[in-house]
């Protein structure tokens, strides 16, 4: 009897969270889908009505759309490549007996705590500025003309900034995974005469594979929605050279007031993210059973 009571009680206790999250996600998402089939521009709100697939057609046939999809993928894969490879190497390095490891760890983790607008502006003004930036001074020192980063390589510049923010995350997670590596297994491999590289390939890397998967999936979720870094550095330009899907939808909604078109873009972004989410849920779900 007590159990039945507790069961009911626990349902009630869980209810507020479930209701809130339901309202937060399902209701707006339904509204987005509804708007995506409506002709609705805030500049001309009286002209509303069912619009069929027009918003989707208009959004997808916009030349900016393919640029945005391409940029989104480049941004995600570029940052992932840098942070995973860098994270594995740095994790291995920080796992060694280093003097003052605590302080070194703090130095490495710090960029992760910097708010996106601040880190983007530090890089834009103080490092990448073609006249006053540190990089310009360094290239002048070597007699190379300085690069105007955001005009010449806008997307790559944003990749560098975002990678700087996320490398600490990857390093920290992969280091944590490394620290649980079985020492005896390593020693056994030593006895059998395994070299550094074969030990890394056959023991360390398989041990880290799970953590690497988690890093990839979590970063992907966040990287698909990169916004502030683009807003304060390039505004998506020049042209559409650094516009990603998130920025394109923002541009449609809050700069062009095209509610219908922005909603269609939002639905497309949700579909893309869901493909990633399915994989993430699977890999985290396995852990829940273990």
């Amino acid at each position, binding site marked *: 009897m007590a159990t039945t009571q507790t069961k009911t009680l*626990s*349902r009630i206790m*869980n209810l*507020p*969270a*479930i209701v809130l*999250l339901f309202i937060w*996600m399902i209701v*707006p*998402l339904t509204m*987005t889908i509804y708007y995506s089939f409506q002709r609705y521009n805030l500049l001309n709100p009286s002209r509303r009505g069912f619009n069929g697939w027009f918003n989707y057609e208009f959004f997808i046939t916009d030349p900016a759309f393919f640029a945005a999809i391409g940029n989104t993928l480049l941004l995600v894969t570029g940052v992932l490549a840098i942070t995973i490879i860098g994270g594995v190497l740095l994790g291995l*390095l920080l796992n060694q*007996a280093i003097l*003052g*490891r605590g302080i*070194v760890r*703090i*130095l*490495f*983790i*710090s960029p*992760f*705590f*910097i*708010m996106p*607008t601040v880190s*983007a*502006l*530090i890089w*834009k*003004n*103080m490092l990448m500025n073609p006249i*006053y930036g*540190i990089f310009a001074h360094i290239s002048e020192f070597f007699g190379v003309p300085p690069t105007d980063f955001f005009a010449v390589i806008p997307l790559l510049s944003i990749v560098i900034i975002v990678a*700087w923010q996320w490398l*600490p995350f990857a390093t920290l997670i992969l280091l*944590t*995974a490394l620290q649980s590596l079985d020492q005896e297994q390593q020693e056994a491999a030593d006895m059998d005469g395994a070299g550094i590289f074969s030990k890394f390939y056959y023991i360390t890397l398989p041990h880290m594979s*799970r953590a690497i998967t988690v890093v990839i999936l979590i970063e992907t*979720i966040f990287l*698909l*929605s990169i*916004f*502030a870094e683009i*807003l304060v550095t390039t505004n998506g330009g020049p042209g559409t050279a650094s516009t990603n*899907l*998130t920025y394109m939808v*923002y541009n449609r*909604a*809050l700069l062009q007031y095209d*509610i219908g078109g922005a909603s269609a873009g*939002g639905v497309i972004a*949700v579909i893309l*993210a*869901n493909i990633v*989410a399915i994989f*993430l*849920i699977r*890999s985290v779900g396995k*852990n829940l059973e273990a």
Partner: protein
Amino acid sequence: MARKITIQHQLGFTLLAWFLGLLMFFPIFWMILTSFKTEIDAIASPPLVVFSVTLENYIEVLSRSNYLKFFSNSVIIAGGSTLLALVVAIPSAWAMAFSPTRHTKNVLMWMLSTKMMPPVGVLVPIYLSLKYMGLLDTRFGLTIIMMLINLPIIIWMLYTYFKEIPSEILEASRMDGAKLWQEIIFVLLPMALPGIASTMLLNIILAWNEAFWTLNLTAANAATLTAFIASYSSPEGLFWAKLSAASTMAIAPILILGWFSQKQLVTGLTFGAVK
């Protein structure tokens, strides 16, 4: 002989790690350094490492430009959303950790999946709803949004910590006639305090640095430090020393909190998948 090589290795690794660590930290260091320069020194060529230290940027930022208002917006929104979320999340995590039903796992997964939703997918309706309710650019509106964004992470983290507490202790208190609220407040919370503290810390960090919703849903009134700093991106805002002073003050509290919570961060950010 073998020992000598190890010491050499250790020295080599130490030097390399320190070099790379300083390189990673350099942009932050440079910003802090710039915040103590005059505007002219800040753009000197070649860059100045030795200069006369001035506090004028801090004084000017603090006295002008409503800096304190943005700062208090950040504190109220990050702190308020965290507390609100805890009020909702503690009962929920309690229910799922100590009296799980066959749906619990699916509910947890569904909660996690809401976090996967890209914010642009709901930008339009959220923006319009807040506008019609008169909550656009208000601290209350943003606090609620921020609480909802991070609620899944908070519930997950608390759930992970609560799972480690033996349920017998809670049952014993129930036997002794403790009411449910007494069981939660006097038995569960004190035991889970370290977990709750690190959950709070992570949430404050995430809310403080959140940029998508703060940039899109606020203007002059409820803007947080994230949005305030973004206003320096306009070309006429090329005051590097002042930007650096404002940024340094904006990141300092979170940087320090972050240093203290880096270990718990791993569990929190990976939903317990990496420990």
